[in-house]
């Protein structure tokens, strides 16, 4: 219930076709604010390419502060709400003070519980985040300020309540990773609106988050450099390699004064995850930068000095 009491009466009819939310499949996180720290992130419902827009928002080409971060399938999702707070007068009359607080909680099970995933989840606890719910039907649930609004916003969460924690395996249970956060207090739940699979053109449970990729440069010659690409997953000794990238995944720049594109003459995956890039010789000591663009990955640029 909202704080406003200006509306007098609500109409109580129901349409023949109602759109209701199913059981929660997972959450999709989104920073509350854009880079400027003021403008709210949102989904533009008026777009004729709504489904494609949302997929684009999950990709590395979208700035991290405006990106959607879909989480893997969750188990045991609960969204319990504490009781509304009242004060009872001496004459036994109840006065409503405030709504209860809704806590979202869910678990990732077994192979979705590497420690590195915990590290990624913990990062979201340091910034103002909001979330969409994705139900098992593939719908996305956020909120709109008015029925005729064309902006769907992620639901704000209380940053200080955000917590991700390991639940270790026992003789009878698999390892789990629990995620818990409270919806912002006093949020009006009647503002929720559902973006359906029909609106999207696909099932939102198919949306996937990105893998963090890391690159390093070695064996630099006048006309070549070896680029090694790994994810931040694997074991303590060997990180998982990023294999099979096409040469179009790489863009080489000479950043001396102003960035100039340097044509890659050839690219060869000389061993798993190690790409030898050959290019026309550059001036020694010029700052070089490799941009890596690969579907499903979020790579930081890799820099080195030409020799």
């Amino acid at each position, binding site marked *: 219930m909202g704080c406003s009491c200006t509306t007098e009466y609500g109409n109580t009819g129901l349409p023949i076709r109602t759109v209701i939310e199913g059981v929660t499949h997972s959450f999709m996180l989104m920073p509350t604010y854009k880079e400027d720290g003021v403008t709210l992130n949102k989904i533009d419902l008026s777009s004729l390419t709504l489904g494609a827009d949302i997929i684009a928002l999950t990709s590395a080409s979208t700035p991290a502060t405006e990106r959607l971060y879909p989480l893997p399938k969750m188990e045991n999702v609960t969204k319990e709400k504490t009781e509304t707070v009242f004060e009872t007068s001496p004459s036994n009359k109840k006065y409503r003070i405030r709504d209860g607080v809704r806590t979202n909680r869910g678990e990732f099970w077994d192979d979705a519980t590497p420690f590195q995933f915990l590290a990624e989840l913990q990062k979201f606890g340091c910034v103002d985040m909001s979330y969409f719910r994705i139900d098992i039907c593939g719908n996305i649930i956020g909120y709109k300020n008015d029925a005729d609004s064309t902006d769907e916003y992620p639901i704000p969460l209380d940053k200080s309540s955000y917590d991700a924690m390991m639940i270790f395996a026992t003789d009878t249970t698999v390892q789990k990773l629990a995620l818990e956060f409270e919806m912002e207090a006093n949020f009006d739940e009647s503002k929720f609106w559902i973006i359906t699979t029909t609106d999207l053109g696909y099932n939102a449970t198919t949306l996937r988050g990105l893998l963090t990729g890391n690159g390093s440069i070695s064996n630099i*010659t006048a006309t070549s450099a070896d680029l090694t690409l790994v994810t931040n997953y694997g074991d303590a000794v060997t990180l998982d390699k990023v294999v099979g990238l096409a040469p179009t995944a790489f863009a080489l720049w000479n950043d001396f004064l102003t960035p100039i594109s340097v*044509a890659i*003459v050839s*690219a060869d995956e*000389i061993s798993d995850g190690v790409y030898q890039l050959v290019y026309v010789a550059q001036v020694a000591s010029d700052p070089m930068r490799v941009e890596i663009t690969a579907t499903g990955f979020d790579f930081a640029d890799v820099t080195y000095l030409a020799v």
Partner: protein
Amino acid sequence: MAKKKTKKEETIDADAPVVEKKVEKLTEKKAEKPIVKESKKLGFVQIGSTWFNFDALKEMTEEEAVQMHTRLDSGRVINAWKKANGKK
């Protein structure tokens, strides 16, 4: 005293000849337009395990291509360069 024609009247009066002239001019332009074949972008072509940028190979001599590929079999580089440049 002759009434000054409005712009609209002038357009109506001149309708037929203007249309004919326009059609002629368009036909002339079409005929004059030179046929320019855009150079085809070749992009990357995979030979063995190596992806060669054929557009870049077209911009250099065979020797230059071999020299920059210090860690690749020269035979494969020459083969790629020849293919990029349409030579046998």
